[in-house]
Structures are given as structure tokens and as C-alpha cells.
């Protein structure tokens, strides 16, 4: 009877040990959950990096490159049509978005492939494809608006509004983004020259490095020769973008001006100031009494030896520090 009791005792111990053994080594639910959380965290981080890149860097670069091409395309388009734009914002948006103007592709008109594979739609599709192929995410990009403006004389500020939606298997991102970018206008065609000379006189924007109080007849000669531009504080000249719509009024923040080389226009002798926005704009015509020939009388450093018929108005004669030795009234 005593041996039977021992058997029950050992059986009880065996069952207890087995129970402990099973409890210890049964897979715990939190271990599985932790593993899943780690995988999810990794994936969310990957997609989040992608979203940040698209929001903060990709569209900034796209806006800058496509915006530059769109502005240059519009200048060349004006050269081909010989007409100013009536609505720069609408034209810019259509060109940068689709590469068209008035629903017609702009590249065949300009003869330059500036917008080919270079529109906002093209670049949006490229990043959508890359996101799908690389991270298996569904990206939706809706462009709301794009515009160009100027707050400084030598730069164009671009802004872009878009809706960005990214859907992955684990999380979704949905943002309304405002992207901004800036590029310099140096190297771009001045449409005002192209229109007014029917494309005969092409002048690319290039900034003069002469300080405002260092002008003299020698620097003016170089200024005409190089076709450079200058901005004066409280300028009465139009900005670069205003030249696209023939808005010839003052832009105190951003007005830029250049001298027209009389050797490159016909007729070269005109009774007007040879500032670009004055020579071709009737609203800036001045009475002959206010016009000066920047001549080269013997012993002076005048300009007519190289730029015959070059004239300036009274204000600009003073602004560029040209003395009465070189400046003679056009109508005595």
C-alpha cells in the first residue's frame, strides 16, 4: 500500500515538471507581436524617408529645373510669335505642367526640346514609378498650382502647391505641400529685346559687377559692349518677368535695365534714350531737349567712336555719372 502511494507521488512530480516545461517553452504571443512590430517599424521608416524626400527635396529640384526651362521656353515662344503674353501666370502654369501653351506643345514651336520629358507631370510619374518599383507603395500626386514671381532683381521665386498621397501596406500619408524654389535669371533670354527686334537682337541677362557709385564713361562703354544689366535702388525699370507681358512700369524691388547697342538695331539713330525699356516703349518717350548724345569730341572718352548715335536722357546721364564733356544735347 505504501509503494502505491510513492507511485502517485512520482507521477505527480512528473506531471508538474512537464507542466512547467510546457509553460516555459510555449511561444509567447508578445514575442510574435514584437517581431511584427519590428518589421512594421522598418517598413514605415523606409516609406517615411521616401515621403520626406519627395516632399522636401525632389519637388524642390524638379520645380527649379522645370521652372527654368519653362521661363526660357516662354521667351523663345514669344520670339517665334512676336507677341507678348497676356497672362504670364496662366502661360507659365500650362508650360511647366504639361509642356503646352494654349493646348499646343511648346517645344515644336520654339524648336528647342526644353520641356521634353521635363514637365511636372513627367517628373511626378517618374517618382510614382520609382516608389512602386522600389518600395511597393502607391503614390498619388495632384498638382494644384505653380507660379513664378520676383522679390529680388536677379532671382525668380517659384512656388508649387500639390496634394501628395502615399499608401503602403502598413500606413498611409496624406499631405498638402507647398514647395518653393529659386533660380537666377542670368543666362536667360530677355524677351523684350527679342520681341522688339523680331528676334534679330538676342540679349542674355548678365549682371554688371559695377557698384552704383563707380559708374563712368569707361564702364558705360563696357556695359554696352557686354550687354550687361544693372539694378538701381528704387529702380524705375521693369523687372525681368514684367518684360514678358510688356508691363513697362517701375519695379522698385526688381527693376533691371541695360543699354541697347545702336549698332545692332535699325535704324540706329533715334531720338530717344538707349535704355532698353525707354527706347522701345512709347510711354517712356521724352522731349528731345532731355536727350543727350554721348559723343566723342576730341580729347574726351565719349562713345560714338564705337557706338555711334548712342544717347541717354538727363536722369540716366547723371545716374551713370557721364559728364558734360561727353554728353551733348541732341536738340540744341
Amino acid at each position: 500500500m505504501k509503494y502505491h502511494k510513492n507511485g502517485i507521488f512520482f507521477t505527480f512530480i512528473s506531471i508538474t515538471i512537464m507542466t512547467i516545461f510546457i509553460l516555459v517553452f510555449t511561444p509567447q504571443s508578445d514575442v510574435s507581436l514584437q517581431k511584427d512590430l519590428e518589421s512594421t517599424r522598418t517598413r514605415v521608416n523606409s516609406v517615411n524617408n521616401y515621403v520626406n524626400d519627395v516632399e522636401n527635396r525632389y519637388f524642390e529640384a524638379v520645380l527649379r529645373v522645370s521652372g527654368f526651362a519653362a521661363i526660357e521656353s516662354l521667351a523663345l515662344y514669344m520670339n517665334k510669335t512676336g507677341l507678348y503674353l497676356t497672362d504670364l501666370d496662366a502661360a507659365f502654369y500650362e508650360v511647366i505642367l504639361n509642356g503646352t501653351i494654349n493646348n499646343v506643345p511648346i517645344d515644336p514651336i520654339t524648336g528647342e526640346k526644353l520641356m521634353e520629358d521635363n514637365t511636372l507631370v513627367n517628373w511626378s510619374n517618374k517618382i510614382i514609378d520609382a516608389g512602386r518599383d522600389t518600395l511597393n507603395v502607391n503614390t498619388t500626386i495632384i498638382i494644384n498650382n505653380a507660379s513664378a514671381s520676383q522679390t529680388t532683381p536677379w532671382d525668380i521665386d517659384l512656388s508649387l502647391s500639390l496634394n501628395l498621397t502615399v499608401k503602403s501596406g502598413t500606413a498611409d500619408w496624406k499631405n498638402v505641400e507647398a514647395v518653393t524654389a529659386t533660380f537666377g535669371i542670368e543666362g536667360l533670354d530677355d524677351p523684350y529685346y527679342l520681341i522688339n527686334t523680331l528676334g534679330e537682337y538676342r540679349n542674355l541677362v548678365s549682371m554688371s559687377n559695377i557698384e552704383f557709385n563707380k559708374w563712368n564713361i569707361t564702364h558705360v562703354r563696357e556695359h554696352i559692349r557686354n550687354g550687361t544689366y544693372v539694378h538701381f535702388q528704387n529702380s524705375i525699370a521693369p523687372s525681368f518677368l514684367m518684360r514678358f507681358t510688356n508691363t513697362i512700369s517701375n519695379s522698385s524691388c526688381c527693376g533691371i535695365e541695360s543699354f541697347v547697342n545702336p549698332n545692332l538695331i535699325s535704324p540706329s539713330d533715334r531720338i530717344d534714350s538707349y535704355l532698353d525699356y525707354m527706347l522701345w516703349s512709347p510711354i517712356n518717350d521724352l522731349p528731345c531737349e532731355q536727350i543727350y548724345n554721348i559723343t566723342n569730341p576730341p580729347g574726351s572718352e565719349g562713345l560714338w567712336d564705337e557706338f555711334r548715335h548712342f544717347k541717354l536722357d538727363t536722369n540716366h546721364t547723371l545716374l551713370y555719372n557721364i559728364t558734360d564733356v561727353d554728353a551733348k544735347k541732341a536738340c540744341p
Partner: protein
Amino acid sequence: MLHKKRGYFFVLDALLGLFILVIGVFLITSTYVETPKPTQVGLLSDSLIDFLSGKTIKNFNSPYAGIGGELWKQGGITNEENSLLQQIGEFYSTNRLEIAEKFIQNVSNGVIPDQFSFEVWFNNVILYPKEPSLEHKKSKSDSELLLTSKRITFGTMNSTTTKIWGPYMVEVFVWERGTAKVRTTFTEQSVCTNAESLGLCGGLDTLYAPGYKCSCCIEHSFCCAGCS
């Protein structure tokens, strides 16, 4: 006397059982210790791609790839704001693959421990090593663990307005050399890839195990339809 001997027998039996249990526990826990390995390799592949995309040329001190270094003097690097990954992308986009290989080799020096090998691919083109040796290929095929990290990169040809290159898909593969293969994930990438390409994702849960399809999504970014 007989009862005392039986007592010894049962004590010895219990000790023997305990010994077997301890050995069993030890063996089982030994296998659990192996699990951190994939995390380490995964971290390495993530770290390498984070390092390449986060470090800019101007912040990278190297006689070869840094500012004023060999490539800078040769005109191979022109934009100091480029990240190392963007610089590789620029080399790739201009078809300077030899320079890209040397650049990767140089900038990754010391980032990946010696016992690990790695590859860098751009848009399914291997840039490093450009021409893998047989030993390298064998090491990859024989590796215990092989993990990949992916990223998208893009950039401008210079800092102004000329041209954008990309977006390119960048893949970094990292593995430990000279070990036998061990499953590091619940699913196999080849199974997930094939299922997606053949449109058989829906059958994965039936064929393999419940939850297999969505694990494919989490672990390899395939078969994600219907997984939240």
C-alpha cells in the same frame, strides 16, 4: 534496507532527469541566441544606406572623395552639397561606372566590418563590385544571411538649373561570409516575388501558412493588396 536503496534509485533517477532537462533547455536556448543575427545584418545594410544618403561631400573628410581631394581636383566632384549617394548617382547617370566603384570602395572603408560583404546596385545595375569575383559570388550564394535595404535617390547635374538625374532605385545587399543559410524571415523572398509576378498572392495563405501573404508584404513589400 531495501527501502533505503530504492530511495537512492529514485533520487538518482530524478537527478538524471534533471540533467537531461538542463541539457534540453540549454540546447533550446542556444538556438534562441542565434536570432539576433539577422537584426545585426539588417542594421548594417540600413546603416550603410543611411550613411551614404546622409553624409554630404562637404562633411566627408577623405583624401579621395572629400573637398579638395583627388576627385575634387580632377573635376569629378563639383557639388559639395551632394550626399555620397547622390554623388554615386551622378557618376552612374554620366556612365562613369569605374569612378563610381572606386568611390563606393573608398567611402565605405571601415563602415562595414571585415567579416561582411556588400553590393551596391543602381536600377538593377551592380556598381560595387563592378565585376564580382568568383569568391565574392560564392560568398554571396553560400551566405547564412543576406539582407537588402532599398532607397530612391535623385539629384541635379549641378546646383543650378540644367538637368535632373534619376530617380534611381538603390539597393544595398549585405551578408556575412562563410556561414550556412538560416531562415531569417517567416517568408522567402523568392516565393513572394514569384507569387506577385504570377498573380498567385491569394493562394499563399493556403499553400504555406495563414498570414503568409501579409508577411510577404511586411518582409519583402510584395503581395500587399488587402493587407493593412
